[in-house]
């Protein structure tokens, strides 16, 4: 062996080599299979099965429908006959056919000849033009060539024409012969259009419907490797250039692959299919082709979040909406959440959060009920006061002004209230600071008692006197009760003793806009109430509580009614005495922050009890942030104490402290826990009293929490969707600002604005039943007449000047029969302008819109108009108030005061209104006098030659002459100041 210079046995080497090669080959093959095997392919296969099934069902239906149509059968028969006829008559004309062929050949030849000669001609033309332009030597030669070709081409063109005519005449004979068949076939195509599409669809997907070759092809095309060419299973993606993904260094186009598995998402046929094939709900609003959010332009993840490029269940970072679902997914998909993805999919209950990033300027967000509720909760609870939120930057403080506190409550009540506000008023938005999970132990409790004392002390010491008048007259509680029910208090307030179990809604929150007035007698005095009602701004300059212009008597009545309600149990809650030792600890703690231990002790020793209380009170107010919601003397410029929330949900999950709580590690779970029990993250932690979490407990119900969490999840960085956000045009800004004011002053408590609101209607109905002796049915019928008006279209309808003045001081009685009052709000000029602009912007009009139109009338016209106005024709006064004259018709159709038309209404609008009221205000009670379907014949024929336009114009002008004082012979004027 040594001689051969060999060591290994070649046979053995061969065997080893063969084995390792085969192993490598097998490994390589499994690489291919591993790459080939993807979940989404299974889904696409499944989907195809469903698709085939659906198409088959549809086709069957279509076929049955067709076969039931007599027309179709008839057509089939006709076609068969026509075909036979064509075969017999037309095709039999062999001579003609030969002629056609011949003519065709001739034409082709002549045409080619012409084409070539024409090309030569064009080139010669250029050469000649060029030669002439540049004075070339051979220009004459070029000219000659050009001219001769010109002649040839002209001649050939004629030849072509001739050949064409010849062919056409022959062809026409043939065509005429087959014209009937062609027409019939066209009819058939039209009739079977849907069927043939289905047939074609099935041909392309259904193995049973295709021939063998295609079956083979469809198998082959999806094989490993070969699938590179023309596969059926493929990753679907939507690339969105203007909806970006934030990759920290920059924003890059978003690439959504969700539709790879969610294949039926835009197809309404799949409503009842299971995920992932089911149709998206509400295609008119989302994803649908004609919706405002078409799939191609918005994709999926910009709203739903998740990992857009993922093509597997876990890769897309789905998030279960409940623990059960999580368990289910774990079993079914091997689910686990991808931890290193910042934007996991929004769980189903919180999906509406996705709307916010684009619709952050809207109040409320239309179509997103839960998100709107969440935002309304944030507004009502005043979260923005402690937590900076971009949207609520300039909003007033949500709590009452405490600078004149001493005039309203006593210290004892104050102590009990601070100790546990919810025990006095179950649904108050004043949150609980004490008796919480991190300060309920005995030591903390003792400390809390003293803290409350200190805070109250500070507040009372620093309260200005409230120069309130005594009740001038004795009030009548019964009348007070009726007034509360009728003037409109229930638009914002409720008197609700028990916690209801109704779900929180935007509308419900409007009725909770002002405090629940239950047990108010325990809280304050009739005197304070009287003064508050007469002039709320004197107690709280920024209050949203308007002035209802109550008479002294009315105010006294209401005060005396409200004061009756008392809560004795609450009053009996013991108030502990001031404990100097505990107080000393508190004071010392605060002192030590700025001093040495000894220094602090020295200072403490030098303080009197009063001083200690005052000192501790101030520090505690600063610590708890009371000033964020309430005006408190000495805290005018203090900064809010909470975390800014404007882009809270763009924050990395790592920045959320879950403490020692065993809850799911997700933003939504954290938010929910924080809202449920804000202090619970302190659990198990050892903290000094001033280190403890401070966020108070709002006693929120689960549905309220869910709504708020939805809104919070929506608070994200908007840079990704800049291109999709409504442009900040003056109109849109006017709308935004107006909507903001509408929310701030709770206009929707009384009015329908942009189709939402009018929360007061129910209580108006109740009032009608309770106090006006109407039956339930009657009340339901006339409740709209006795409720504040719908503000739909007022931008176009009202004269902006009038609107401005009316909002400022609503003295004029447009609807004198109403008991509910348009109160006087504390609007400043900016507010007023904003509102007027807003209403105009909503109606698409530019501010300021004021058209001067000629409103004069000739005598003849006046006469005609007066007739139209009268009972004989339109009978306007049946429903409309004119001046102080109430309508003659039934209450449920009473309508505004026409005497105000002159100053109040836009003349142009009036024309359109008279013409077709329900076009401007769908569902209006105003009758349509001119039938829009047959407009030209709709008016009375005997006036103004039956010219409808003229009739409307004179009627409009007539209305504009009406006034409170003088009216020409229509109704006896009884002028009266409102």
């Amino acid at each position: 062996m040594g001689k051969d210079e060999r060591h290994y046995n070649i046979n053995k080497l061969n065997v080893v080599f063969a084995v390792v090669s085969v192993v490598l080959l097998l490994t390589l093959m499994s690489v291919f299979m591993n790459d080939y095997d993807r979940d989404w392919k299974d889904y696409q296969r499944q989907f195809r099965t469903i698709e085939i099934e659906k198409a088959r069902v549809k086709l069957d239906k279509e076929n049955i429908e067709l076969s039931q149509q007599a027309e179709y059968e008839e057509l089939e028969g006709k076609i068969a006959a026509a075909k036979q006829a064509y075969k017999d008559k037309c095709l039999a004309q062999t001579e003609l056919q030969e002629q056609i062929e011949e003519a065709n050949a001739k034409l082709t030849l002549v045409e080619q000849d012409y084409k070539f000669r024409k090309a030569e001609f064009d080139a010669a033309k250029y050469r000649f033009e060029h030669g002439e332009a540049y004075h070339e030597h051979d220009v004459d030669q070029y000219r000659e060539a050009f001219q001769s070709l010109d002649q040839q081409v002209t001649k050939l063109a004629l030849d072509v024409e001739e050949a064409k005519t010849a062919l056409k005449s022959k062809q026409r004979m043939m065509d005429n012969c087959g014209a009937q068949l062609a027409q019939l076939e066209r009819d058939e195509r039209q009739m079977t259009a849907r069927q043939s599409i289905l047939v074609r669809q099935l041909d392309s997907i259904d193995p049973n419907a295709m021939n063998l070759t295609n079956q083979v092809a469809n198998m082959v095309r999806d094989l490993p490797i070969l699938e590179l060419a023309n596969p059926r299973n493929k990753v679907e993606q939507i690339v969105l250039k203007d909806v970006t993904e934030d990759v920290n260094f920059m924003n890059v186009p978003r690439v959504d692959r969700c539709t790879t598995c969610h294949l039926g998402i835009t197809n309404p046929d799949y409503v009842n299919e299971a995920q992932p094939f089911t149709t998206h709900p509400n295609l008119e609003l989302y994803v649908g082709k004609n919706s405002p959010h078409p799939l191609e332009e918005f994709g999926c993840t910009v709203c739903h979040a998740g990992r857009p490029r993922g093509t597997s269940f876990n890769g897309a970072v789905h998030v279960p909406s409940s623990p059960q679902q999580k368990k289910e997914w774990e079993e079914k998909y091997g689910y686990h959440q991808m931890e290193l993805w910042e934007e996991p999919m929004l769980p189903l209950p919180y999906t509406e959060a996705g709307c916010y990033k684009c619709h952050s300027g809207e109040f409320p967000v239309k179509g997103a009920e839960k998100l709107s509720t969440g935002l309304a909760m944030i507004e009502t609870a005043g979260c923005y006061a402690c937590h900076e939120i971009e949207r609520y930057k300039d909003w007033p403080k949500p709590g009452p002004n405490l600078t004149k506190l001493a005039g309203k409550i006593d210290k004892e009540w104050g102590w009990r209230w601070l100790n546990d506000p919810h025990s006095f008023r179950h649904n108050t938005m004043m949150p609980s600071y004490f008796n919480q999970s991190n300060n309920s132990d005995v030591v903390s409790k003792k400390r809390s008692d003293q803290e409350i004392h200190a805070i109250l002390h500070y507040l009372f010491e620093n309260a200005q006197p409230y120069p309130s008048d005594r009740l001038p007259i004795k009030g009548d509680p019964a009348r007070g009760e009726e007034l509360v029910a009728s003037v409109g208090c229930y638009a914002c307030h409720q008197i609700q003793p028990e916690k209801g179990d109704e779900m929180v809604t935007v509308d419900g929150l409007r009725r909770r806009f002002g405090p629940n007035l239950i047990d108010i007698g325990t809280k304050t005095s009739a005197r304070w109430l009287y003064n508050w009602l007469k002039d709320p701004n004197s107690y709280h300059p920024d209050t949203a509580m308007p002035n209802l212009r109550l008479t002294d008597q009315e105010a006294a009545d209401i005060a005396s009614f409200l004061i009756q309600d008392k809560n004795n149990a609450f009053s009996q809650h013991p108030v502990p005495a001031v404990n100097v030792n505990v107080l000393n600890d508190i004071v010392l703690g605060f002192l030590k922050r700025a001093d040495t231990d000894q220094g602090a002790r020295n200072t403490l020793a030098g303080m009197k009890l009063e001083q200690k209380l005052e000192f501790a009170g101030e520090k505690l107010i600063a610590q708890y942030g009371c000033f964020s919601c309430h005006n408190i003397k000495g805290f005018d410029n203090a900064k809010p104490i909470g975390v800014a929330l404007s882009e809270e949900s763009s924050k990395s999950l790592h920045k959320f402290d879950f403490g020692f709580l065993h809850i799911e590690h997700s933003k939504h779970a954290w938010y929910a826990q924080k809202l449920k029990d804000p202090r619970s993250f302190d659990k198990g932690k050892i903290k000094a009293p001033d280190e403890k979490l401070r966020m108070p407990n709002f006693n929120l119900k689960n549905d309220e929490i869910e709504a708020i969490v939805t809104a919070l999840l929506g608070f994200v960085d908007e840079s990704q969707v800049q291109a999709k956000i409504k442009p900040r045009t003056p109109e849109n800004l006017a709308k935004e600002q107006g909507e903001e004011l509408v929310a701030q002053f709770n206009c929707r408590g009384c009015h329908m604005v942009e189709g939402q609101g009018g929360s007061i209607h129910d209580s108006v109905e109740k009032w009608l039943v309770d106090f006006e002796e109407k039956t339930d049915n009657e009340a339901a019928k006339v409740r709209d007449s006795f409720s504040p008006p719908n503000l739909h279209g007022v931008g176009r309808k009202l004269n902006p000047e009038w609107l401005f003045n009316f909002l400022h001081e609503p003295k004029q009685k447009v609807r004198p029969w109403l008991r509910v009052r348009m109160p006087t709000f504390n609007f400043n000029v900016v507010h007023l302008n904003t509102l007027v602009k807003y209403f105009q912007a909503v109606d698409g009009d530019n501010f300021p819109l004021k058209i001067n139109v000629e409103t004069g009338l000739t005598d003849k016209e006046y006469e005609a108009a007066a007739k139209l106005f009268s009972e004989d024709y339109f009978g306007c006064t049946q429903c409309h108030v004119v001046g102080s004259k109430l309508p003659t018709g039934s209450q449920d159709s009473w309508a505004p005061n026409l005497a105000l038309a002159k100053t109040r209404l836009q003349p142009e609008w009036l024309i359109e209104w008279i013409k077709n009221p329900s076009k401007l205000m769908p569902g209006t009670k105003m009758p349509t006098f001119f039938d829009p379907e047959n407009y030209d014949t709709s008016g009375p024929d005997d006036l103004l030659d039956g010219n409808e336009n003229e009739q409307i114009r004179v009627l409009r002008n007539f209305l504009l002459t009406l006034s409170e004082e003088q009216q020409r012979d229509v109704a006896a004027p009884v002028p009266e100041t409102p």
Partner: protein
Amino acid sequence: MSDKNKPQKNKSQKTSKIPPRPTAPTQDAAGGADQASNSQNKQIGVTPQELQKKSAVATPIVRAPEGENVDRRTFIKWAALGWTAFAAVIGGYGTLLLRYLFPNVLFEPKQSFRAGYPDDYTVGEVNENFKETQAVWIVRDAEKIYALSTVCTHLGCTPNWLESEGKYKCPCHGSGFYKNGINFEGPAPRPLERFKITQAPDGEIIVDKTKKFQQEKGEWTDPESFILV
């Protein structure tokens, strides 16, 4: 110059025997093939038959050394298996590379668009809805619907549809086209192009701009170039 020996020897091997190829056999075990091809080169003008014969003789690459020529059959079997598998692996690597070159998705802008339903178009109308966004006219005549490119075949300007005159007229150099896209005046050398047009399962029209049909190539009769209605 003094030490001439070494390079000289080297040289003599290389240069002196050209042609034919240097005869000094390379010292590897697979020298057989080399030698065969050497002899081939010596006599110029080998016929192909000869060539084949020679190479056939030269094929056994490995001479079984003494002591190993136990079972020639097994030997060949294993060698064949090993080398076949190895060749398959090399082929597999090639396939891997090939497959890798074709991604599953494309980031190119979509070349197809949905254009509503046949009923959205009236007979005889030239629909300009997609002229701006997609550079396509959709035309419906008595029988069919087709999609015309709005790119002039002359220099790529965009012609205008003149309803009253029933023609497309290019503003750049005055080329004129009939409603069906055939050129009849001006410098345009050929008719406008048509695009692939099909119907989705829901009956919606889909225009695919990746596939063009040119009249001069006789492609307008292709069933994908129109929809029958």
